[in-house]
């Protein structure tokens, strides 16, 4: 038994960070038996799938034929040298992988874009136009007396969000646990997590998820003292919306939770903006905060590292020599559709589900062995999973806390950072 865990004879690891969703739970106990891992404590089923999966044996390949790692990397370097606009996509990796991807993109005047930045750009647009007041996981866990789950299925996305944040046994500012109300805006959101001693009341405003924006807009309108013409909004009685407004005003610390990638509303940016303006308005008299969830596949890490190294959120183009940000025209989807991009380098080192976009362009995949692929890429290089094969860091989805990842197994494959740096050295 070793808390540090890296030495070869240790068989049980405590406080293991799970890299398979943005919540980065770090209380897992994982046992190693040979080259297999078993979760002994605190893993959700997503963690079980990730840690306990048996990955197929995998070798670097060019056109489907096994080659040495060096041959594969040389081929990639040659393809990047020839490309006029290489596109570095997926970017499902840790801080080290992201640093290496940015360095390579800068050197090769390419584009960087995360698989999920199409959703994240809506948050970024609100940040860049109006800003927000937000909270973090520990603060919410201990302080919130009213939690609103807005238009997105947080329980489905983060299986332990309710257990760890909403329904703890003990909170800091009262004896035992705080009594809190949980409000779900949207029909069909999984409410099964909202249970236990600290849950006072569960309220549902059962609008279709596609119309959650209408309910939120009505809520803000009522809070601003504007009349609402009809008796109901998207199937929710105006009186219920007014009741929520009253509860928000009376709460000491409300937290409005959303996951931008899960929203079903037609204009996610407008939804997030309305939510954040609601929070701002509440703060004139009481305390309230937003909490943005999601951020799986290293999305928050990729955006943060890109933010501090380039100044901009993803997607960023280094085509001119200096980083440039444009959420539409620098996205890899656009660069593929417009024909500007001529080489796709896809990086996916956590789940095996993160497929590259369909394209006939030459494609290089740095991926988890067994990654789903619609077609054989020109070059495939298996990479290790951060937090299983190698150490590293990831940034949690509240964008504040970052966690250390440990190597639990003797590395089966090199890290993405090692491969990308070696490729850059060959350019």
């Amino acid at each position: 038994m070793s808390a540090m865990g890296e030495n070869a004879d240790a068989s049980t690891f405590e406080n293991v960070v799970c890299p398979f969703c943005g919540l980065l739970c770090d209380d897992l106990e994982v046992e190693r038996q040979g080259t297999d891992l078993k979760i002994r404590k605190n893993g959700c089923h997503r963690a079980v799938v990730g840690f306990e999966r048996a990955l197929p044996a995998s070798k670097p390949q060019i056109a489907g034929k096994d080659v040495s790692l060096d041959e594969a990397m040389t081929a990639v370097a040659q393809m990047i040298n020839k490309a006029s606009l290489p596109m570095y996509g997926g970017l499902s990796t840790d801080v080290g992988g992201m640093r290496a991807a940015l360095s390579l993109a800068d050197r090769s005047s390419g584009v960087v874009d995360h698989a999920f930045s199409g959703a994240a750009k809506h948050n970024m647009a609100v940040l860049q136009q109006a800003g927000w007041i937000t909270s973090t996981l520990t603060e919410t866990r201990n302080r919130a007396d009213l939690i609103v789950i807005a238009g997105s299925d947080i329980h489905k996305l983060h299986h332990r969000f309710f257990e760890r944040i909403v329904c703890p046994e003990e909170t800091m500012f009262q004896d035992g646990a705080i009594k809190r109300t949980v409000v779900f805006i949207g029909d069909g959101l999984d409410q099964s997590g909202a249970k236990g001693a600290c849950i006072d009341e569960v309220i549902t405003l059962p609008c279709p998820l596609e119309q959650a924006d209408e309910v939120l807009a009505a809520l803000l309108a009522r809070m601003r003292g504007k009349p609402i013409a009809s008796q109901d909004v998207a199937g929710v009685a105006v009186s219920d919306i007014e009741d929520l407004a009253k509860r928000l005003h009376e709460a000491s610390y409300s937290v409005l939770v959303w996951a931008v990638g899960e929203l079903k509303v037609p204009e996610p940016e407008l939804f997030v903006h309305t939510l954040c303006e609601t929070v701002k308005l509440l703060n004139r008299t009481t305390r309230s905060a937003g909490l943005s969830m999601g951020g799986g596949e290293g999305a928050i890490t990729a955006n943060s590292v890109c933010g501090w190294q380039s100044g901009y959120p993803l997607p960023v183009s280094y085509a001119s020599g200096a980083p440039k940000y444009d959420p539409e025209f620098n996205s890899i989807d656009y660069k593929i559709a417009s024909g500007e991009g001529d080489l796709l380098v896809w990086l996916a080192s956590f789940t095996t589900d993160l497929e590259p976009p369909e394209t006939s362009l030459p494609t290089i995949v740095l991926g988890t062995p067994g990654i789903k692929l619609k077609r054989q890429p020109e070059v495939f290089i298996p990479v290790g999973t951060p937090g299983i094969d190698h150490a590293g860091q990831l940034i949690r989805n509240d964008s504040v806390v970052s966690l250390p990842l440990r190597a639990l197994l003797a590395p089966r494959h090199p890290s993405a950072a090692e491969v990308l740096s070696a490729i850059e050295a060959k350019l």
Partner: protein
Amino acid sequence: MLIKLTGGRVYDPANGVDGEIRDIYVRDGKIVSPPEDGRVDQEYGLHGRIVMAGAIDPHTHIGGGKMTIGRLMLPEDHRGDPVCHTHLTRGGCGHAVPSTLTAGYRYAEMGYTACFEPAMLPANARQAHMEMADTPMVDKGAFAMLGSDDFFLRQLAAKDDIEAIKDYVAWTIHASQAIAVKVVNPGGISAFKFNQRELDLDEQHVHYGITPRDVLLTLSRSLKELGVAHPLHVHGCNLGVPGNVETTERTIAGMEGLPVHLTHIQFHSYGTEGDLKFSSGGARIAEMVNKHKNISIDVGQVLFGQTCTASGDSMRQYGNTKSANPKKWVVMDIECDAGCGVVPMKYRDKSFVNALQWAIGLELFLLIDDPWRIFLTTDHPNGAPFTCYPHLIRLLMDKGFRNDMMQKIHPDAAAASILGTLDREYTLYEIAIMTRAGPAKSLGLRDRGHLGVGAHADITVYDDNPDREAMFGTPVFVFKNGEVIVRGGKIVKVVHGDTHVARPDFDPSIEKSLRDYFSRYHTMSFDNFKLSDAEIEDGGRGGVIIQPTAARSTS
């Protein structure tokens, strides 16, 4: 290899050298005595040039979550200052909240060789260090923020033994890899989470019942008795509030002689006289600082133009959001640990308030008489981006230039300030104290900030240009660890600096209470909270340097 820097005019206040012509010898990255055999491998003729130690910025927000929020929020500012990659350097962006890479390059290009991030939230320490690791060229260090974190406030409210509090402070310095401790709006960041909108020096926190004065006295005493070189770094109560000069005076008087560093004091030197109920408290604060030798300060000078304020002071930054320009801002409550507020700001010379802020900062510089207790900062980027330092140095060294600038500001502000009557011009020796020797001494960097034998060979060479802005903006040479990294104000070699930390003693039994606290309330485990040396050192972005602390004492 022995390098000789020949014939330069040397300003090395730590060793009492004031503009004497001296030769400096460097071997293996250190300053050494002249070789007995006289053999020199490489010589730089520096006749007529000015030689100082590499500059040290003791308070500059270069790394951590709130800076990255500022970066992500302000693409329009970056677009005005794109930075292309070269065969040596990476692409990035500059101006108000530069990319980490560009910040490192530009600091070095101005002759700086060390920068200290003053507001590292322990909960965000890992990211702050990762950002600093991606800030090349310069040495780094960070101050851990305490004083609104619930563990400390619970200790204080429970009247825990001071030794247990000291153990916690020391543990935090270790766990977050800090060199010092900063307190921001003492207790106020926490009070804001309980919906208090102000917390004056003797006002009680609604939940804990403690006051900012309790926090300040406990933390400053703890650091002194832990032997940490840098005194408690204090961002006081009521930042930016007209009338806060009184709070600042009471704070200085109330420190009972304990060593304290009051940061960006310009923002805490405001009176309420005049039609706009906004006036200068510069002279009053300067008098207090001159009288109280236990106090050191940095100014947080405001200079005109677009910038972005970023602070741990969520309470006061929320108050400042009404002045946001452009109109967007972020306020955060963070991890039962701290908070932050990021508010873009455009200081205009034609605005009475902004112009008076500018004048107040300069009054403080010119009225505080001991340059060893005042450091040159703009509180980057809060008062202005650090790239304005050469301009600020010229304002301090050149009265004619200063008076010309004063003609351009709002006339009522010029009339409301005594700045025009101040004739002082800083000397090169005093500038060298304020930007090198003073910060190094205050931070306890034993072999930085001076040019004596045994010092690290971080050396900056300038042309003796009477236009001091041009002089300090483009050093002729910058040496880092004895290597030339900048020539003619341009990078010629990219290096990675080290991270300076302090390691005061603590009784490990504090970890038992912390472990229990983390498991009961936190969303991160105690073991993962701690940042190891390996995380900083791995990847070849610089090492960890442990600076000495004095023996722990009790009183």
